[in-house]
C-alpha cells in the first residue's frame, strides 16, 4: 500500500538522520543552510522555550487556517453570482460574545506557561560560577570572576579563516564553559548598547552602558559542543562583525583549560596578542 511505502521512506530518512547525528558527537549550535526552525537547544530554558513556542505556533496555525477556511467558503458561497440577494443580518449576540470570549480563553491558555517560563528563565537560582560579559565596538570581553581570567574575543577576518571555520561566526578566543554547571551571566557595555545572544542557550540580553544585566545558563553533558551567536542590537558600522562563539566542555576539560588560560590570559604582558585585563585590580568599565 502507498501508506506503508511512505512509512518505510520516513523510517529510512529518520534512521539516516539519527546515524548522521550520532556520527558527530559534538553538538554544533550554528545555523544550517535552508534552516527554517530553531537551532539545537542546549539549555533547559531553550528546551522549554521551543516547547512553548510550538504550543503557540499550532494554536496560531489553527487560527490562520480557520480564517482562511471561512474566507474560502465566503468566496464560493457568497459571490454575486451564487448569492444575488444579500442578507441584511448585522447582529448576532451569541456570535459576538463567542468571538470575544473564546480568544480570551485561548490567551489564558497561552499566558500561564508563558509566565511560568518567564520566571524560570529570569535568574540563576544557585550559580556555581559567574561569567562577566562586556561589549565594545566591536568585540566582546569575557571575565571569569571566580578564576581571575579575562580576555577579548574578536571575529576572525574573512582572509584569515582556516578551513572549517565559519565566516562571520568564528572568533580568535572562544568562551569556554563547563557542562553541568549553573552559570550566572553578568553583562554590561563600555560604549553603546549591544546584545549578547546565543540562541541555543535561550539567552538574549542587551548589554547597556551604566547597567549590569543578568541571565543564566546550564548545559547538560550530552550537549557538549560549540555554539554560535551574534550581536543582536544595532551598534554601529561593524555590528555584523562581533560574533559570539562558546565551547561547552566537560568539567574536567574545563579545569585543564582554566590552568592553561591562567598562564595565557592571567598575566599582564604588553606584547601578548590579545588585549589583557587583570581581573583583580581592574573594573571592566575602565577607560581603555
Amino acid at each position, binding site marked *: 500500500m502507498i501508506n506503508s511505502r511512505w512509512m518505510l521512506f520516513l523510517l529510512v530518512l529518520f534512521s539516516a538522520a539519527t546515524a548522521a547525528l550520532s556520527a558527530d558527537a559534538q553538538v554544533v549550535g550554528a545555523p544550517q543552510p535552508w534552516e527554517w526552525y530553531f537551532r539545537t537547544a542546549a539549555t533547559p530554558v531553550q528546551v522549554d522555550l521551543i516547547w*512553548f513556542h510550538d504550543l503557540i505556533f499550532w494554536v496560531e496555525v489553527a487560527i490562520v487556517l480557520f480564517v482562511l477556511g471561512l474566507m474560502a467558503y465566503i468566496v464560493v458561497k457568497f459571490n454575486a453570482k451564487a448569492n444575488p440577494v444579500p442578507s441584511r443580518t448585522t447582529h448576532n449576540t451569541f456570535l459576538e460574545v463567542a468571538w470575544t470570549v473564546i480568544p480570551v480563553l485561548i490567551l489564558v491558555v497561552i499566558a500561564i506557561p508563558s509566565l511560568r517560563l518567564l520566571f524560570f528563565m529570569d535568574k540563576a537560582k544557585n550559580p556555581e560560577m559567574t561569567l562577566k560579559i562586556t561589549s565594545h565596538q566591536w568585540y566582546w570581553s569575557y571575565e571569569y570572576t571566580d578564576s581571575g581570567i579575562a580576555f577579548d574575543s574578536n571575529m576572525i577576518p574573512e582572509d584569515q579563516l582556516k578551513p572549517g571555520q565559519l565566516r562571520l561566526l568564528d572568533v580568535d578566543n572562544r568562551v569556554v564553559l563547563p557542562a553541568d554547571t549553573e552559570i550566572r551571566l553578568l553583562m554590561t557595555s563600555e560604549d553603546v548598547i549591544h546584545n549578547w545572544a546565543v*540562541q541555543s542557550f535561550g539567552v538574549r540580553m542587551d548589554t547597556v552602558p551604566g547597567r549590569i544585566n543578568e541571565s543564566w545558563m546550564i548545559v547538560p553533558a550530552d550537549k557538549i559542543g560549540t555554539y554560535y551567536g551574534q550581536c543582536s542590537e544595532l551598534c554601529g558600522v561593524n555590528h*555584523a562583525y562581533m560574533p559570539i562563539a562558546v565551547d561547552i566542555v566537560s568539567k574536567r576539560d574545563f579545569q585543564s583549560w582554566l590552568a592553561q588560560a591562567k598562564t595565557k590570559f592571567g598575566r599582564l604582558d604588553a606584547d601578548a596578542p590579545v588585549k589583557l585585563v587583570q581581573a583583580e585590580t581592574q573594573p571592566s568599565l575602565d577607560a581603555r
Partner: protein
Amino acid sequence: MADTHAHAHGHNDHADHGHHPTGWRRWMYSTNHKDIGTLYLVLAIVASFVGVGFSMMMRLELAEPGLQFIRDQHFYNVLLTAHGLIMVFFVVMPALIGGFGNWFIPLMIGCPDMAFPRMNNISFWLTAVGLILVATSTVIGGGAGTGWTVYPPLSNHTFHPGMSVDFAILSLHVAGAASILGAINFITTIVNMRAPGMTFHRMPLFIWSMLVTAFLLLLALPVLAGALTMLLTDRNFGTAFFEPSGGGDPIFWQHLFWFFGHPEVYIMIIPAFGIVSQVVSTFSKKPVFGYLGMAYAMVSIGFVGFVVWAHHMFTVGFNVETRAYFIIATMIIAVPTGIKIFSWLATMWGGSIEFKTPMLYAMGFIFLFVVGGVTGVTLSNAPVDMAFHDTYFVIAHFHYVLSIAAMYAIFTGMYYWLPKMSGRMYNEKLGQWQFWITFVGVNVLFFPQHFLGMAGMPRRIADYPDAFAGWNMVSSGGAVISLVGALLFFYILWDTLRNGAKAPANPWGVGANTLEWTVDSPAPFHTHEVLPVITAEPAGSHH
C-alpha cells in the same frame, strides 16, 4: 439622489466653481481639503520612490552573503534608518491620514471643509519640510546609521558626530508638529461639523478610525517631541538625559520612544481598519456587521495601545514582574483585533460579493493581517521573544502588518476612491493583475524571513553567515516581484488619469451608501454647501 450642487446655486460666491486660485497658487496656498488631500497623496508617492528604492538596495545587497554592492556598512545602516523613517512618517501616515483623511472626512460627514483650513495648509507643508530634512540627513554629515529608533548612546554625539542625526531629529520634530496640527483639525472637524442627524453612532467606520487615530497622534507625538528635544540637547548642549556618565540612562530614551512608538503602529493600522470596513461593506452590499463592536474595538485598541510599550524592550533587562505585566497587557489587544477580523468575515457572510480590485485588496488585508497578527501574539510572550528579539522574525512580523497590511489598505483606498478623486475609472483587469502580482511578491519577500529569524539571523546587518544565504535569495526574489507590482500600480495610476473612462457619482452600486458617493465624480472643488440631513443608521445598520 441628492446632488448637492442642485441645491447650491445662488448660495454665495463660493458656490461658483471658477472662484479658486489656479496654477501654483492653488496648491501652495491651498486651504481646500481635497487639494490638500491630493498633495498628501502626491507626497506619499514621491517619498515611496525613495523609501522603496532604499529597501530594494538593501535586498539587492542581501541577496547573497558577502558585500557586493554596499561596501560601507555604515551606508547600509543609513539606508535602513532612512527606509524606516520615510516609510512610517512620509509614506504610510501621509497617505492614510493626510491623504484619505483630508479627502474623505468632510465628504463622508457632510461638511464643506475641514474646521481649520489654513492650519491644514501649514500641516501639509511642515510634512513636506520634514521629508526634505530626512532626505538631507542621509547625505549630510555622514548619514544617520542609528535605525529609526535612534537609540542612544549610538545616536549621541560621540558615536554620530556629524549633523545627520540632528537633521533626522528636526525632521521628526517638524513632521510631528504637522501631525499634531492635523490631529487637532481632524478631531475638531469630526466632533463639531457632522451633518445634522449624523450622531457619533451613525458615523461611517472610516470616520471612527480617523477620530481614534487623531487622538493617538495628539497624545503620542508630544512625548516623542519631548524625547527628541532631550536627545538634541544631549547631542549639542552637554545635557546627559540619556548619558550614563552624566547620571542619565539610555533605557529612559527607549521608554519615551516606545511610549510614542507603540501607539504609532496603531496610528498606521487603525485608518486601515476604517478603509477596509467601508470597502468590505460596499462590495458585500451589506451593512457592517456589529457596527458598535467595530467602532469600540478601535477605541479600545487605541486605549490599550498606550499601556503596552515596553514589549519592544523585553531584552533590556528590567525586572521580571514588569515583563509579566507587559505580556498580559499586550495579549489583551488580540481580543478587540479578533472582534474586527470576525466582524469583517461576518459582514461578508451572506453578502452578494463583487470581487473588484478594492475588495481583493481588502480581503488580502484581512488574511495577511491575521498572519502578521498571530506572529505578534508569539512575540508578545517575553520568553519566546528571547529567541526572536532583533532577528528577522521581528522584521517578518512588522512587515506583514505594515508593509503588507498598511500598504494593502493604501491600495484598497486608492482603487476604491480613485473614481471619486480623479473622476475616472481604473482598468479593472490591470488592477486585479496588480493585486495578484503584489500578493505573490510580498509573501515570497517576507514569509521566508520568519525562517531566517527562527534560525537566529540578526536584523540590521549587511552581511550574514553563509548558512542564511538560501532564504535571503528567495526573499530578494520576492522583492523583485513586489517591485513589479508597485511599478504596475504607478502605470495604472497614470493610465487612469490619462485614459480612464469617466466615472459616475457612484461607480460601486447599492453597497456604496456613504455620503461621498452622493456628490459628482470627480468631487467638485466645493461640496456639501447645503448640508445633507442624515436619518438612517450608518450604512443601513439596525440596532
